[in-house]
């Protein structure tokens, strides 16, 4: 497990073995069966989590309609992050779609680490910047890309998710009508069959 953590954090900055140990000591393993709501709207999110295995979705309700803003799989972060960083109630739900194992850091532990590890400020800044940029990109893609472009980019970037996540959830995440999504997926299968 330490290896996976090191691999993840190395993307941001290189930490000493001691620092890594201190972080590791603060992390909690959390396991959930599939279809578990791990955060509900109105609750405060206490964790920033790294997905060890499984898939989760993050969403909110617009009226009675679910709007999915994130699909998280192995190697990525999941959190109702604004609630986590601000300690305000979450506006989002997070639900597991498969059995899920998370490596989670609580807000309290994060504050301990700011004191214990001088480099923690930098590490947190780089991770939060990344979360910010991902959100910026997701919003920008929603504005600038056509439906077809959003679909093909998703297929190229996340072929795994296309297999593992129910279609209606991907459609919601990409803000594509379910019928349109089916049609695009069908034409994709068709064209790969022709080229193959």
């Amino acid at each position, binding site marked *: 497990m330490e290896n996976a953590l090191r691999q993840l954090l190395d993307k941001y900055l290189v930490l000493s073995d001691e620092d890594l140990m201190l972080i590791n000591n603060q992390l909690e393993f959390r396991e959930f069966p599939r279809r578990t709501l791990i955060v509900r709207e109105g609750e405060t999110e206490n964790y920033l989590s790294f997905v060890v295995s499984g898939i989760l979705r993050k969403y*909110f309700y*617009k009226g009675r309609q679910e*709007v999915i803003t994130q699909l998280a799989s192995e190697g990525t972060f999941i959190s109702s*992050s*604004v609630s986590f*960083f*601000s300690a305000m109630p979450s*506006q989002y739900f997070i639900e597991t779609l498969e059995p899920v194992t998370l490596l989670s850091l609580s807000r309290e532990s994060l504050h301990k680490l700011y004191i214990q590890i*001088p480099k923690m*400020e*930098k590490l*947190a*800044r780089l991770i*939060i*910047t990344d*979360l*910010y*940029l991902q*959100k*910026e*990109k997701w*919003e*920008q893609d929603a*504005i*600038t890309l056509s439906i077809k472009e959003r679909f093909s980019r998703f297929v190229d970037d996340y072929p795994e998710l296309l297999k593992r996540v129910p279609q209606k959830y991907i459609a919601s995440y990409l803000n594509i009508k379910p019928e349109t999504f089916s049609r695009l997926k069908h034409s994709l299968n068709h064209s790969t069959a022709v080229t193959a």
Partner: protein
Amino acid sequence: MSASKISRDHEAWTVLHKFVERYVHFNDAEFRAWQSFFEIRTFDKKQSVISVGEQEEYINIVVSGLARKYANLERGEVTMQIAPEGHMIHAEWSFHKRVPSSVIVETIEPTTFIAISHKNWQALLDKHPKAEHMSRLFVTEMFIIKDRRYYDMVQKSTREVFLDYIKSHPHMLQRVPQKYLASYLNIQPETFSRLKHLLKTSGTKSI
């Protein structure tokens, strides 16, 4: 040095000081040490600050004037940010990921920025732990604001989006061309005109 330049510089440092003090406190000597990392950039109105394909090298804080960030799409321009005095604006993806920008930052009015280059920012972070602390708090705040804005835009009606924006930014209606505001708030230009007209004739309560 001309009197106007001196007063402009003074204003720029005041804006920077206020901006930074929102996150960290420091004494005069510390602030003077930070100053050497920053520079003042001035632009005429409707001038490009960064264009598509260019590498973003700056974080800009508006001292005076007004700037906007937008994308140029087949279906027209989409305004993503309008930054008045005290706000930060730049092509953040390009700046952080070190890739060419896909967005445009352009001034609306003649604008002065207090700015820091990517190189100087890195140097400041390395040299001053308070800069690291401030940057973490700042990006966290940006992240929270971005998420709130997105959530509000999805949840609120067009009318609420319009009214809430006008209430919290009362001067923007005079300063920003209507088409940019409409685009930023994702409201059809005709609807925006109608709401603005209603606001003029009947005030915020009866819209």
